[in-house]
């Protein structure tokens, strides 16, 4: 693939605990093309989440580079990285990570408020609110918009999280074991949804999973082993 969206070049990540240094990533080279779905496999503790965080600019690599659309981004200022993360990358986590005080609708709406000033948002709030409603509709939660996360099932929460990841119209979704906490039937439904929206919108999808069968549904499977990517 030539149309690379997100790339890691020789990324290493080390954690030092006391005097000991643990190298979790030891020179990862990886590229995610536009619209491509990739499954990332690896044993527990292999560094899959770490790689995802580095690619999503949530964490910075110890060495190496992260490039977005061919531009180096890991050395950007922290607020520029935040803006890029908001605009181009959507995260979906294993434990949903919704804000407990907010309803499903507000959780999704919140995603449209991150890079706007209060007054700019107030001016466009009608359109943005309608978008939030549409997205909840799309993930099958049109009837549950006013429920708080605690009042939703695991599968429903994950749908809300997916809607939230989509609100800013990102180019890539980074999903960290999105179905790890769900029974197989619900998991299949959620994955269908993820693949569905990624196809509809031409989103790249990087899916961290333990499940080989699920991985087969992706265009490509990569494995993280010993701190390196092995195809």
């Amino acid at each position, binding site marked *: 693939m030539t149309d690379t969206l997100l790339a890691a070049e020789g990324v290493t990540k080390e954690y030092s605990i006391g005097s000991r240094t643990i190298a979790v990533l030891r020179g990862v080279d990886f590229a995610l093309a536009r619209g491509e779905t990739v499954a990332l496999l690896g044993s527990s503790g292999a560094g899959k989440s770490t790689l995802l965080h580095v690619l999503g600019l949530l964490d910075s690599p110890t060495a190496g580079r992260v490039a977005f659309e061919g531009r180096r981004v890991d050395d950007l200022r922290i607020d520029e990285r935040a*803006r890029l993360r908001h605009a181009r990358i959507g995260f979906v986590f294993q434990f949903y990570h919704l804000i407990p005080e907010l309803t499903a609708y507000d959780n999704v709406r919140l995603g449209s408020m991150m890079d706007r000033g209060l007054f700019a948002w107030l001016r466009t709030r009608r359109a943005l609110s309608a978008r939030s409603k549409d997205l909840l509709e799309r993930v099958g939660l049109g009837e549950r918009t006013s429920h708080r996360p605690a009042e939703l099932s695991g599968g429903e929460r994950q749908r809300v999280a997916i809607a939230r990841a989509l609100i800013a119209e990102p180019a890539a979704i980074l999903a960290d074991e999105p179905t790890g906490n769900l029974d197989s039937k619900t998991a299949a439904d959620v994955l269908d949804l993820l693949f569905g929206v990624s196809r509809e919108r031409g989103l790249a999808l990087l899916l961290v999973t333990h499940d080989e069968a699920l991985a087969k549904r992706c265009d490509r499977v990569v494995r993280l082993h010993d701190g390196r990517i092995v195809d």
Partner: protein
Amino acid sequence: MIRAFSAFLALRYLRSRWINVLGTLGIAVAVWALIVVIAVFSGFIGEIRGSIRNATPDLLCTGLAPGASFAPIDAVLRAEQDVVATAPRLRHHAMYFPHGRGQRMQATRALATNPLAFDAVELVGIDPAAERSVTDLTHWLERAAGAAPEAAPDATREAGVTDLQRPFDVPREIEEQHALRSGASLGPNRLLAASPGILVSRRRMTTSWLERGQQLDVVTGRFERAEFGTQLLRVRRGFAVSGAYDTGHRILDETTAFVGIDELRDVLGFCVDDPFATAPQDVVSDVAIRVRDGADLAAVALRLEAALRRTADQAMAGARVLTWEEQNRVYLGAVGQERAMMKLVLFAVMLVAASLVYGTQHMTVMQKIKDIGILSSMGASPRGVQQVFLLAGLVVGLLGCGLGVAGGLLSVHWLNDVNDWSRRQLGIELFPTELYALDRVPYAIEPVWVAQVAFAALCVAFLAAWFPSRRAARMDPVLALAYE
């Protein structure tokens, strides 16, 4: 820029945490107290300044040598174009023994509580006609007689002088009546010559059990040149209370009695009717000065002082000219100081409120560590995260501030109604107006002070929220996401 999500979340976090009401109330109470207490304090100070102003001449020339003559000083003072009028004054300390007080005190069984049989006063000799043109003498007399609109409730006609123009005259029949009533030792011959009058304050009239027409034995001492150095001469002179005055300035009223200046000169041995006397006949210790309205008192005082000292006259070499504020510098300074202390003490309440805000915001941040990670993953910058908690603190500050200012202004506005109501219904007087001989609680709202308090409250809330919010902003998003 205020980010939309920061404002949105700040309000949601506040709404789901009732403990923030505490912070709001804390700020509100602090602001309220700072406004109400200082308004009343300023009211009192205004009242005190007003009464001092009424009781004090614009300027007072003092520090003259003993036995200084009025005429040459007066000439220097009047040469200044801003001086409108002058009045001679002679001050001397004395004690007085009222005749017949024993019977009155026995009758009211007051002896036990007031064992002092004599009172010390500062006698101030004045020339009523000149004094009237410099100070509010007429008004002081009217107040004591209950004739002035703002006279104290216990002012009575019986305390007033009979003739405002001649305040030291005692009607013969009143004096005689009095003497007959009280003095068994007093022969009728003593009354052939009328006693000179003395004006005591209305307050002293009550506390010393005095009445108009009553005889006072005024006792004082003076130094006289003797063969070897000087000797102390005791002087005793009978006066009759001609009436009361009331300047409204408590300290002055409590310590001062007015007599005719010639009378006092006579007591002190400056023979006013002796054409062969060597000492000047118009002896003064001070000169009260009235200055043209609108003139700069301090500047005029300086010019006069310089003019007095320029003369070669030994009597004026140490002359000082004090403005009415300088004459009461210690007292005015003390009340000002008290208000400043009060501000400081009340500001401590604000600090307590601040710690409430700090506590709740800190708690919120600790409870919301995971949310901070989530927000970061959604693309919130550290600055945006900080804003969430900063705005929450600011909203608490704004609400508290608004409540406090509104409550404070309303409280001050209804102060007297509330005070009256609580006195009638509960028997508790929140502000003891009696104590200060006022018929209502004075207050003065200074807009600048209210603005300062409001601004300070906002700053305090902002600072109190700033530390927790900075902590939130500095959190590592990955660790925050993993936080359990």
